[in-house]
């Protein structure tokens, strides 16, 4: 799985992307748990961030698969 970090998530982690190896599918809750374990600075961002899967907002109940591209999307502020 490839994880992309943007804006405050990028600043918290210090990376804009990284590989995340998993052989099984993961729920959003499980993925957050694992990412926060690796990067504790993500904890305060969890409630505000949305997740995307392969360039689409994650739908309720959808899970992540080992080959997915996942992005942590803090509240947007374009324009």
């Amino acid at each position, binding site marked *: 799985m490839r994880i*992309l970090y*943007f*804006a*405050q998530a*990028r*600043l918290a982690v210090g990376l804009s992307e990284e590989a995340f190896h998993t052989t099984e599918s993961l729920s959003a809750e499980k993925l957050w748990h694992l990412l926060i374990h690796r990067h504790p600075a993500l904890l305060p961002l969890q409630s505000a961030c949305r997740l*995307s899967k392969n*360039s*689409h907002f994650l739908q309720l109940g959808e899970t992540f698969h080992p080959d997915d591209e996942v*992005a942590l*999307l*803090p509240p*947007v*502020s*374009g*324009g």
Partner: protein
Amino acid sequence: MKVFVRLSPDPITPLPDIADSTSGAVVTFSGVVRNVEQNQPITSLFYEAYHPMAETLIRDILRQLSLPYPCSSVEVLHRLGHIPIGETSLWIRVLAPHRAEAFSLLTHFLDRLKQDVPIWKTKPSP
């Protein structure tokens, strides 16, 4: 509705005029980097985007808005990277037969852009 979208680090220059005698209204919006951000003086802002998703979402939103607000053309340029104050971060031009659709589509699009499209501005680290 013709749609043109470009996200790019290049400075924004307005696109050439469109000759279209069926469109009675042309509305243009420019977003400019101000000298203050959240009450702090700044000299530039850093914009980043989740590029393919941002462009796809912009097109999806415009397609949805074209149903209640039929316009003939919408062009969206968003600059990314470091943008100094006084320079344009966003440029949008809408052509429509009448002004009401043009203003409605544009203002609703801006609301959606600032709510859903994965583009972020951050203050450069000092």
